[in-house]
């Protein structure tokens, strides 16, 4: 019998919550069984984009079978106006709705009907009548209409940045001046936004689907004008977020308003159409890109100008130019972002803000320039890689983009194409991915019971990414125990505040906090032992704490394992310790995860239909905590990238500022048959400058560049460059003619 537990970080460990999920034991927000059976709320949605409610008739609905209340701006109770106070972060500002007769966007809630059953609530909702004196909505239609310079961009980037001097005309061998457009997009998480809220004795308990718990509590306290201490938020399982659940949305606000009004439990689940209007989407972008290179194929000039809509009264603008600023060195780099305030539903983080759509355009444009200059696009990229930050001259903690491109091309068999079937053409495409890494303040606690069981608590969330599993591994490895002996508890605001899930920072930040908590626990144990034993390793197995001789020292001159029976019988269990990471735990140098995407496509010579044959990626993101969950997450990102390249886009009905296709029948998320082989590898290289666990972010790395590789492969196949995403067959055949 051994007391050694093999290290699990960096290996493939199956999800510890997998069995619960596939057997229905893992309850998502709408499935939560509250102490009191919840009443059901159904949202009455606005048919007008912007205006004031001038009349509202709820009488018929109130008298309908099973109805307990119809809540409107007249009886919703105390609410702080939406997005106030201005000095709070956007995830802690008020998320109020029904607080005023003003309607800010199409599909916004006008009323909430609460009844015994879903059917009663939904039918009664159809009996609510209202009029709104609609005004013409503001929208962004022309690049030049976006004139407002955002104060800052998501990720902390400046709106405008410039470095170096414009090249002389005589030095330019090849140049391109081009405009790319990407459509409005939606996160499209499988689980719709849903909340069960219960209000009892002045206290609010909220089960919802949210990526960050601590800010959700603050947002509810501000919105409902309640004390933080009176609110508990739980989100133990989240069925996908992709940015759309970073903050709370109207399902949560409305369920809480209803629960407070009736002093009952109330459930609100948004329908798919309501998700499109009452949760964030990404604005459409126009990106003007000018590039030039010299005789030696060195980039001389990179100009990237972005125009996007911004939802009125909500401070969010994404950094589509971030990739253009960091991916390649160039004598001159200029990047600007402009926005226009529009009367659309919330515009916020959606699947890798900035880089997902920035890379679609920029990495396509880089490909265009390579072709214009007559150089292989892979060679062109490798030739222009930076050693230090191209604009700031600052160091990278690590930078493996070159290795990803070179090794990735070998693994993919770049330009070794299969024989096309008759009537089809095959193409290969490549694109680079650079995604900024950040470490965000995060806390955790660990507890050791008298029978040797380990429990970790943090308000971190698992949005399907594998957080339960990687935190279990980190705790098990640090405490030298088995993963079976560790229970990780997440998604409860009573636990220590974490970074939450988002911005690719969750695993490294919360994982480092857990590691530090476990290290503190070991330090506590060792502090009660004689100094002669301090070099030995603490292990936990078979219900006991043991000392095991380490490479650094044996125990009292023997190599025997030493059980701390004495220590255990004199200790006050449970033993516990806390850990916290902050900005002090990470380097000031530039931190980026990077990767190289490759795609092989087949394009029909007659119809322009595109079929994906292969997607491959090679990624560098520091220590990969769990190969299996990390690979699954990256694959998901690559599939999203295929969706952005080929199928996804919200169509706007401009007269009414509504969406033409707000459902999964007509908003085309890629389906299984659209995707073919997806494979990837990691370059494993712990980056302890980035985080104590050596990991960097992967959450948004998979999508960044994935779509551009496909777009470039399409061009390689059929020589048609489509600059208006998604690349549908009608745009390709327009290029054939």
């Amino acid at each position, binding site marked *: 019998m051994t007391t050694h537990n093999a290290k699990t970080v960096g290996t493939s460990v199956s999800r510890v919550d997998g069995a619960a999920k596939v057997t229905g034991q893992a309850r998502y927000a709408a499935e939560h069984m509250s102490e009191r059976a919840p009443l059901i709320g159904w949202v009455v949605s606005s048919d007008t984009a912007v205006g004031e409610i001038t009349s509202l008739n709820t009488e018929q609905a109130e008298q309908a079978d099973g109805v307990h209340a119809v809540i409107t701006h007249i009886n919703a109770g105390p609410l702080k106006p939406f997005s106030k106070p201005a000095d709070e972060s956007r995830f802690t500002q008020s998320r109020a709705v029904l607080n005023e007769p003003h309607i800010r966007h199409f599909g916004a809630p006008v009323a909430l009907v609460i009844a015994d059953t879903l059917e009663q609530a939904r039918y009664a909702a159809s009996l609510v009548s209202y009029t709104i004196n609609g005004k013409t909505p503001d929208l962004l239609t022309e690049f030049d209409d976006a004139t407002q310079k955002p104060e800052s961009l998501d990720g902390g980037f400046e709106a405008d940045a410039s470095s170096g001097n414009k090249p002389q005309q005589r030095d330019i061998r090849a140049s391109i001046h081009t405009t790319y457009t990407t459509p409005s997009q939606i996160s499209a998480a499988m689980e719709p936004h849903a909340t069960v809220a219960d209000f009892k004795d002045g206290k609010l308990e909220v089960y919802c689907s949210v990526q960050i718990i601590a800010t959700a509590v603050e947002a509810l306290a501000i919105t409902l004008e309640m004390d933080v201490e009176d609110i508990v938020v739980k989100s133990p399982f989240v069925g996908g977020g992709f940015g759309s659940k970073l903050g709370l949305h109207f399902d949560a606000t409305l369920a809480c308003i209803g629960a407070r009004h009736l002093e009952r439990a109330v459930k609100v689940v948004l329908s798919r159409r309501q998700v499109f209007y009452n949760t964030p989407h990404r604005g459409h972008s126009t990106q003007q890109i000018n590039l030039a290179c010299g005789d030696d194929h060195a980039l001389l000039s990179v100009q990237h100008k972005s125009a996007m809509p911004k939802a009125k009264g909500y401070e969010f603008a994404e950094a589509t130019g971030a990739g253009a600023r960091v991916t390649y060195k160039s004598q001159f780099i200029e990047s600007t972002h402009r926005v226009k305030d529009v009367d659309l539903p919330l515009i916020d983080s959606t699947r890798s803000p900035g880089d997902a759509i920035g890379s679609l355009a920029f990495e396509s444009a880089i490909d265009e320039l390579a072709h214009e200059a007559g150089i292989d696009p892979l060679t062109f990229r490798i030739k222009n890689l930076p050693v230090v930050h191209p604009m700031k001259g600052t160091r990278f903690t690590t930078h493996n983009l070159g290795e990803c491109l070179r090794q990735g091309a070998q693994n993919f068999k770049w330009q070794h194409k299969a024989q096309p079937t008759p009537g089809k053409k095959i193409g290969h495409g490549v694109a680079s991915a650079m995604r900024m890494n950040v470490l965000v303040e995060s806390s955790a606690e660990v507890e050791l019971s008298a029978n040797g069981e380990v429990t970790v608590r943090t308000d971190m969330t698992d949005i399907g990414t594998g957080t339960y599993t990687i935190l279990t591994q980190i705790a098990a490895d640090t405490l030298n125990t088995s993963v079976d002996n560790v229970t990780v508890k997440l998604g409860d605001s009573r636990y220590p505040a974490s970074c939450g899930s988002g911005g690719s920072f969750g695993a490294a930040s919360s994982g480092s906090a857990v590691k530090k908590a476990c290290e503190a626990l070991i330090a506590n144990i060792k502090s009660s032992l004689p100094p002669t034993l301090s070099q030995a390793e603490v292990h936990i197995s078979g219900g006991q704490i043991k000392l095991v001789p380490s490479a650094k020292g044996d125990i009292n001159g023997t190599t025997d394992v030493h059980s701390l029976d004495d220590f255990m019988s004199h200790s006050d269990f449970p033993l516990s310790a806390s850990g916290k990471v902050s900005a002090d735990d990470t380097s000031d140098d530039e931190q980026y995860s990077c990767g190289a995407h490759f795609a092989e496509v087949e394009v029909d010579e007659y119809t322009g239909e595109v*079929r994906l044959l292969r997607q491959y990626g090679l990624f560098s993101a520091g220590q990969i905590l769990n190969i299996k969950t990390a690979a699954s997450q990256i694959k998901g990102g690559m599939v999203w990238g295929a969706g952005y390249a080929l199928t996804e886009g919200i*169509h706007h009905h401009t007269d*009414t500022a509504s969406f033409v296709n707000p459902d999964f029948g007509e908003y*085309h998320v890629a389906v299984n048959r659209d995707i073919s082989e997806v494979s990837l590898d990691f370059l494993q290289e712990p980056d302890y400058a980035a985080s104590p666990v050596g990991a960097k972010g992967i959450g948004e790395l998979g999508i960044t560049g994935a779509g551009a590789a496909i777009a470039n492969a399409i061009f390689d196949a059929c020589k048609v460059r489509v600059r208006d995403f998604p690349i549908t067959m009608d745009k390709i055949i*327009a290029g054939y003619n």
Partner: protein
Amino acid sequence: MQPFNLHHYNGDTSLDNFPLSNTSRFLAGGTNLIDLMKLQVETPETLVSLAKWEKANAITEDDNHYYIGAMVSNSDLAKFAHTQPALSILAQALLSGATVQLRNRATTAGNLLQRTRCYYFYDTTKACNKREPGTGCSAINSMNRIHAIFGTSEHCIATHPSDMAVAMMALNAQVHTQQPNGNTRQIALRDFYREPGDTPHIENHLEDDELITHISIEKKANGTQYYHKVRDRSSYAFALVSVAAGLKIDDGRVKDLTLAFGGVGTKPWYPQKAIRVLEGAEITPEVISQAAEAELSSAKTYGSNDFKPELLRRTLEKVLLEIAEHQEKHPEHEGALYDNA
């Protein structure tokens, strides 16, 4: 959903027992009607469920015809058609539609009667002459990527969404019905649908109290067959353009052609003008182009569907050239062009 009365028809009692009118609907698989009722696009006062109508679940045949019960599921019909070389085009069309789960529920008669997927028909905040006669058509001057180019009117440009019906149009299927007074009739599917004109809410020639009992298809050889559906994603999307074609070639010339188009018409489109050009002709890109032009002479586009004529021309060329090439090599071939179709 509006409250409604629910009745059950089991095939043994008379239809006379039910309050059939323009506010009643027969409920078959429910894959379309129930969704529309939830959105209050459809607000029937009476539903007559056909779930207990066992007899309508059968597929039978005699020497000359196949008979497909109204309640045969799309999955079962696809499974059967897959075993009959001459019905390959029907199997291919069925399997290109919806998902396995929907095909398990959706029925043969229900599929013929499914409503359009026009965005504005589904959005009760938008004007729609098909949903609410007289309110106007939101599609004509807005986003209309998925809309029709054949058979449109100033009142409606919505497409009929069925794939199955396109194949049945090509196969010259016959619709058999009965009424409460005991009358039965047979309507050729090619005459079954109405173009929208100024009454886009009336989509076919059925009476309010008329029930489809079965579909019949004549047994005949259809040669090499190919249903090619061009759409915005490879599964679970409606056709932008589809071509259903079966071809027999004799001595280098078209001996027998079975052809229909989907995704382009206000009804499943039977392209008579194109067929006239192709009959007896040698299949060449030029002839196909002439056939497409002949049919497209009556096409009208509306902005975001301007690409459809060119896409139809190209899809028709691809399909006919590929099946003609196969027929030249295998003159006796009967069945799918591609084994995995």
